[in-house]
């Protein structure tokens, strides 16, 4: 046997494919499958949460309560005032899904939010920031809008399903779910919550018009918050803005709706009592 010198051929063990086109192909595939998956999961979560009865939601709300209510103020006349205010907001024929429970929290951070089961949380800093009852009522009506539209319980359903799926993917592939997937889900959820915020805002403005006869002295609150933030008071208000859209686009959208419905947007402020 004689040894013959030969140049070693390339491309035997290497697929001729540009790495970037390979990546583009993969990304395309994963994004398409991912989008379809997220939409399906979202629909499933909504279907599941629709099956949750009010009694069940009340139970879920009570179990969540233990996680959030630190520094809660009990037996305060402000709670009675706020409860009366929020119950004065719905229309006459409107049914409130569950009895509302107002929780007043001692905190320097301006915030208001609602969780499943009809628990509405108001921080004391919010009460110090509002300059009229109209402003306060708008914030309360917005949170009530979230509750009436079932946003907290739907959000919970989505959160649980997405977490489950992420865990399954994580376990199955032995690598962390690529960052792009978690980013995708976050963008998707952000868009979803934006829709919710618009719905809650429109709900709120309609109730305010109904209650006070005009929409004046409602949105100044958001402008003030934003000014506060611009002046470096970031920590105080960032929590509210982390769950709510920026004031400018919010106000613009509401003004547009008011124009369409020919709602009066000017009027006298009602002063806040008992605070």
């Amino acid at each position: 046997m004689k040894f013959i010198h030969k140049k070693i051929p390339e491309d035997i063990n290497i697929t001729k494919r540009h790495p970037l086109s390979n990546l583009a192909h993969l990304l395309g595939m994963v994004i398409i499958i991912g989008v379809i998956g997220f939409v399906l999961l979202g629909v499933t979560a909504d279907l599941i949460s629709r099956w949750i009865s009010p009694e069940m939601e009340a139970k879920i709300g009570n179990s969540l309560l233990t996680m959030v209510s630190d520094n809660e103020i009990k037996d305060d006349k402000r709670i009675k005032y706020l409860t009366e205010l929020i119950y004065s907001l719905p229309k006459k024929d409107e049914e409130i899904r569950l009895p509302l429970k107002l929780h007043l929290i001692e905190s320097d951070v301006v915030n208001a939010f609602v969780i499943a089961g009809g628990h509405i949380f108001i921080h004391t800093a919010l009460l110090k920031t509002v300059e009229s009852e109209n402003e306060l009522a708008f914030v309360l009506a917005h949170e009530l809008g979230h509750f009436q539209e079932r946003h907290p319980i739907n959000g919970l359903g989505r959160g649980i399903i997405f977490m489950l799926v992420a865990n399954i993917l994580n376990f199955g592939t032995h690598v962390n779910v690529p960052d792009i997937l978690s980013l995708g889900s976050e963008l998707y959820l952000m868009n979803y919550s934006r829709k919710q915020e618009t719905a809650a805002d429109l709900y709120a403005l309609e109730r305010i018009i109904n209650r006070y006869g005009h929409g004046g002295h409602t949105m100044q609150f958001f402008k003030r918050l934003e000014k506060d933030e611009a002046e470096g008071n970031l920590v105080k208000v960032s929590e509210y803005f982390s769950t709510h859209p920026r004031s400018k686009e919010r106000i613009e959208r509401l003004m547009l709706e008011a124009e369409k419905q020919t709602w009066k947007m000017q009027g006298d402020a009602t002063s806040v009592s008992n605070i």
Partner: protein
Amino acid sequence: MDVSSFYIFLLLLILGYAIGSYLERRHYKSIQQREHETLHVPIITIGAKQAMPNAEEAQLFVGTVVISVDYFKRFSAALRNLVGGRITVYETLLDRGRREALLRMKIEAIEWGADKVMNVRIETATIGGRSGNNNSLGSIEVIAYGTGIK
């Protein structure tokens, strides 16, 4: 994940691709040149169950190399893990590893004066990556060994 960590991810991806493919091209050039230079010494796999040819001297030669996966390759492979199929980005990595390990073994044998390297075997191992929680970049080690004779 916020926006800034997305930019960091993107930066790592671009850096991984740019530097990784530059180094890969350079490595291939060097591999091809050294393969050409050492073409006169055959490396063959026979010898384990066949009689070795008569030789004055025989010695074991080992060539090893460790190559790391770059961020771009790892990301592509992670996506591939989701949908299945050939991980083409790792093919060049393993190809470079095998050829580099063989070359190192061969060059050492040539310096010793071998006119053949027989019974050549190649093995690979992964190091650096943890199974299960695989968040760190993995590397591969390729070991080539054979018996040089003269």
